Structure formats: structure tokens, C-alpha cells
């Protein structure tokens, strides 16, 4: 009976490569991981956006309209809908002159209750220390 924590740290811009998309889809896959594990064991993902990666969190991404692909916005909302822990680095958001209002902070429109957290980098550093395994995307 154990829970292993796994951090998905996203530092890449969206769309050029699949990095941020893969981070979210793999984090979401934690929902079905139990079929491979012993009774009571589990994997708990934490998703953090840092550096240029915070630009994945902008609202109104129209990737489906123009390119027929799920937007990172949709993936973020799915993550929140499934109650994943999502953290966004405040220093980087500030650096880009963005406000909370520009960012995907919840998935209320699809019935989600969990909110993303805008946190100082030091909080994300803490996550990195706490988790069992770290992955940078």
C-alpha cells in the first residue's frame, strides 16, 4: 500500500514539439494506472509549468479550429477535471506581463472543481524535492 509521486515539469512552448502535450496526456494516464499495480498502490502526478512553459496555460487556444488538434487548453482542463494538481510559476507569469485572468485557472465550464494554483517558484522547488521521480518536458 503505497503512493508514488511523479512530477511533470513543463518548460517547453506548446505546438512546436509534442513535449507539453505528452506531459499532460501521460499525467492524465495516472487515472488508469491501477490496473497494473497491486491493490492499494497508486501513482500521484503533479503538473508544474515553469519558464516558457507557462505560455501553455493561455486561454482561448484555437488549435482545434485551425489545425484540427486538441489544444493544450483542453488538456489542461481535462487535467483539472480529473483533479490533478496543477501549478503555474508566478515569477514567469509576471515576467511575461500576464494576469491570472489570461490563464486557464479552472475547468468550471466542463464541470471541474479543482483549480490550478499560481505559486512562487519556491513552491515548485518544494514539489521537486518531495516527489519520488522528476521529469522535465
Amino acid at each position, binding site marked *: 500500500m503505497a503512493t508514488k509521486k511523479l512530477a511533470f515539469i513543463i518548460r517547453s*512552448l506548446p*505546438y*512546436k514539439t509534442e513535449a507539453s502535450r505528452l506531459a499532460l496526456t501521460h499525467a492524465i494516464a495516472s487515472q488508469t494506472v491501477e490496473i497494473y499495480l497491486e491493490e492499494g498502490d497508486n501513482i500521484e502526478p503533479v503538473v508544474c509549468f515553469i519558464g516558457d512553459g507557462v505560455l501553455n496555460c493561455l*486561454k*482561448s487556444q484555437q*488549435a482545434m*479550429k*485551425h*489545425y484540427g488538434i486538441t489544444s493544450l487548453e483542453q488538456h489542461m482542463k481535462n487535467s483539472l477535471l480529473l483533479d490533478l494538481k496543477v501549478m503555474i510559476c508566478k515569477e514567469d507569469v509576471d515576467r*511575461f506581463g500576464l494576469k491570472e485572468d489570461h490563464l486557464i485557472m479552472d475547468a468550471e465550464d466542463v464541470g471541474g472543481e479543482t483549480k490550478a494554483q499560481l505559486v512562487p517558484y519556491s513552491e515548485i522547488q518544494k514539489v521537486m524535492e518531495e516527489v519520488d521521480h522528476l521529469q522535465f518536458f
Partner: protein
Amino acid sequence: MKLGVFMSDFRGGSDVLNRLSAEKLGIILVGNGIYHATTKENGKSSPLLDKSANFYVLSEDLESRGFSSADVDSRVKPVTYSDVVDLIFNDYEKIIWI
């Protein structure tokens, strides 16, 4: 020469672009290059926009990333794929991708 440059990157390629010289230079921001048109860091616009050139940004790529024409620096003109075809055939003779 009349040179059209597709700039598809935000963090790389500026060194190469800065050295290019052309009688007529057009820079078309596409893909992650669009952040040059939309995104300030510590209150400053991308230094790329200080280059003497005609700047364009592909609307489809803007909107895919959560921006609209309203977010675009005044030095940059939003264009569609159809406009880009005309730029290629009518305004520039050589075109490169960075």
C-alpha cells in the same frame, strides 16, 4: 535581393536573422515565432522587431496559441495563409525558414 524570412522560433535563430541583409526584407512570424509579435518580457518587446523589415504574423498560428490581432505589436501585420501565398509570389524572390 528581396528576401522573405519565415521565423518559426521564439528562442533561437535571431543570431542568423540579425546578420541577414537584403534590399527588401520581409519577416513572417509563424509557429512559435508568433510570440515575437505578442509577448513582452519584463515589459520589453522582442528585439527582433527593431530590425528594419516588413513584419507579418500568421493569424492561424496566433489564434491557435491563444492570441488575437488585438495582442499584436503595431509594427506587425496579421496575415492569412492566402496572404502569405501572395507575399511569396509577389513581394519576395527568395524565401527561407528559420
